[in-house]
């Protein structure tokens, strides 16, 4: 029988198939945890006297609440609130009590949960990967089945290394043709979400295929899979190919055995199909307060859209008229080395426009080190941008990195919801190229003339 990639990974990790009475029991190959969505799960575990079943398949990191400014002269990190600090300490205590490896502050491998998994070679094809974080879909770029879970389910996985799951439906999204150089994984994602809508993927696992995917780097694939959740899909997947195995060999530091069977068989049946003309995609930005409100950066605000009042945009207005107060490059969507290189490519020999604040936040300690070695951080600082310590930072604005009411932020993160980057802050999602071009011009700018 022919099978999709999703079905193969599902079956490989299936403890017991679903019945009318009970959803399937799915074994979890890797459970990533961070400080925000775990404390209440450990409380339940401790109340019930349960142990963590597989600390060896669990990995903790600290990313959401942590400051991206270095410690002060007193050696204290500038936490936004005592609660933020308490949350970090709670994770540290819980990991120590249960023998879970933690990439703690000061560890040279620490970073945003969806950056470090792949970077350390822990994310592998064929795995099931979960985390109390919706952007866990990122890891699907390696042909893993990866999805976000709530805190109750975090408790389930800690205690049993398994989850109760109904089998989702499958959708193939094929990118036909190849886009120009200035178009990145982020632009493919925004174009896809515009086409299928913020709930177009609800109930589905997406598999991305086509020429534009085959030629995409691992970083670009992670960006695309990361944004699957913004189309309502819990998971997005890409079949492993040479690009994947080469990345993994480098990350793991040893050759990883190739598995040729981890791809959708010819003739396998999906529940739904979408074709997207990749050759027609240009650098994209959002103009509203949901990620499907996306349009070409060089375009005009379309008619009949929601969220324009909040954004202060008018129908028919050229986006290039919108002046920008802040630019943020970072997050699990675009905080990897390739993203740093892209932003630096545009900023090299240029300056951030007068009055614009630009924050560049590497996704991990490893990205930070590499960017410094490659001279990228020097380019950012020379251009007038701030180069920070790794963390989620302005993607979720929990750690004190946030905008002021009315700010217009061009951001490489994943959500343009009202208030996501601070109360009253307006977010325009874009690729690192577009973000950097906008920083240089002080207004929303397409990077087509820069790359």
């Amino acid at each position, binding site marked *: 029988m022919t099978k999709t990639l999703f079905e193969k990974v599902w079956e490989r990790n299936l403890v017991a198939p679903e019945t009318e009475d*009970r959803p399937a*029991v799915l074994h979890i190959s890797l459970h990533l945890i961070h400080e925000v969505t775990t404390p209440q799960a450990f409380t339940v575990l401790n109340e019930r006297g349960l142990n963590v079943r597989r600390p060896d398949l669990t990995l903790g990191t600290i990313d959401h*609440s942590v400051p991206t400014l270095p410690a002060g002269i007193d050696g204290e990190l500038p936490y936004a609130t005592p*609660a933020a600090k308490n949350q970090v300490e709670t994770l540290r205590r819980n990991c120590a009590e249960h023998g879970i490896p933690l990439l703690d502050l000061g560890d040279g491998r620490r970073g945003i949960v969806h950056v470090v998994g792949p970077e350390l070679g822990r994310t592998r094809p064929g795995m099931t990967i979960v985390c109390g974080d919706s952007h866990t879909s990122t890891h699907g770029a390696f042909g893993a089945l990866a999805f976000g879970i*709530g805190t109750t389910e975090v408790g389930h996985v800690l205690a049993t290394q398994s989850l109760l799951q109904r089998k989702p439906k499958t959708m193939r999204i094929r990118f036909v043709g190849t886009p120009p150089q200035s178009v990145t994984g982020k632009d493919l994602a925004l174009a896809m979400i515009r086409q299928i809508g913020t709930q177009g993927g609800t109930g589905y696992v997406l598999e991305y295929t086509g020429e534009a995917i085959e030629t995409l780097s691992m970083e670009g694939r992670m960006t695309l899979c990361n944004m699957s959740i913004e189309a309502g899909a*819990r998971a997005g997947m890409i079949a492993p190919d040479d690009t994947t195995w080469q990345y993994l060999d480098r990350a793991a530091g040893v050759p990883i055995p190739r598995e040729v069977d981890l791809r959708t068989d010819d003739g396998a049946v999906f529940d739904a199909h979408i074709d997207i003309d990749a050759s027609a995609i240009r650098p994209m930005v959002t103009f509203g307060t949901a990620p499907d409100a996306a349009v070409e950066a060089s375009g005009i605000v379309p008619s009949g859209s929601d969220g324009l009042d909040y954004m202060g945009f008018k129908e028919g207005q050229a986006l290039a008229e919108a002046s920008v107060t802040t630019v943020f490059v970072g997050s699990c969507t675009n905080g990897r080395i390739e993203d740093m290189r892209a932003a630096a490519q545009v900023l090299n020999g240029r300056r951030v426009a007068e009055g614009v604040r630009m924050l560049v936040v590497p996704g991990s300690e490893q990205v930070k080190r590499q960017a410094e070695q490659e001279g990228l951080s020097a380019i950012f600082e020379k251009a007038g941008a701030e180069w920070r310590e790794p963390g989620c930072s302005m993607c979720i604005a929990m750690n004190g990195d946030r905008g002021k009411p009315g700010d217009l932020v061009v951001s490489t993160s994943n959500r343009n919801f009202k*208030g996501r980057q601070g109360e009253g802050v307006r977010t325009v999602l874009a690729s690192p190229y577009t973000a950097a071009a906008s920083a240089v011009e002080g207004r929303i700018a397409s990077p087509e003339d820069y790359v």
Partner: protein
Amino acid sequence: MSSEAFTTLTSRTIVLREENIDTDQIIPARFLTTTSKDSLADACFHDWRFEASGKMTGHPLNTVDLKARQIIVSGNNFGCGSSREHAPWALMALGVRVVISTEIADIFRSNAMKNGLLPVTVDEDTLEALMADPGREVTVSLETQTVTFGNRSVSFEVEPFARRCLLSGQDSMDVLLSALPEIQKFEEAQS
């Protein structure tokens, strides 16, 4: 162990017409530094209900008697965005027990059911009728899987396992714990 059960509820509605009410609206991220599930009522829809100065706004969520209105009727795609279970915790803290919309996001739906909050999806026509009359009395029965108001009764779908857990207040952790022998066998075969 048990969690909060849900069988049938008769209550009035709060209508939130907005579409794509995301988890950052339901509970802004700056309230996520908590390490417990308690005291989240003020955080719920905080930026809709409070000005930056802390003053209450005139939003219906502030002006109606929430004890008598435990059903939210919302625009399409409620609960999209993050996996934070703080969203259903905060809604429950505010007294909400049912959310009705034409689409409810996957992870929110799954989190809600585990906490005694019932997500109900209905067709557009039913949603329009409910929206047209904010504050009307509605009966939601998980036993019969129906929403009843006026002389209208429509049925809704729920995943049968989650339904059973919610009806009885059974914790799905117990079901997984009882599967441990199978899990053990799977792990042994793997290694």
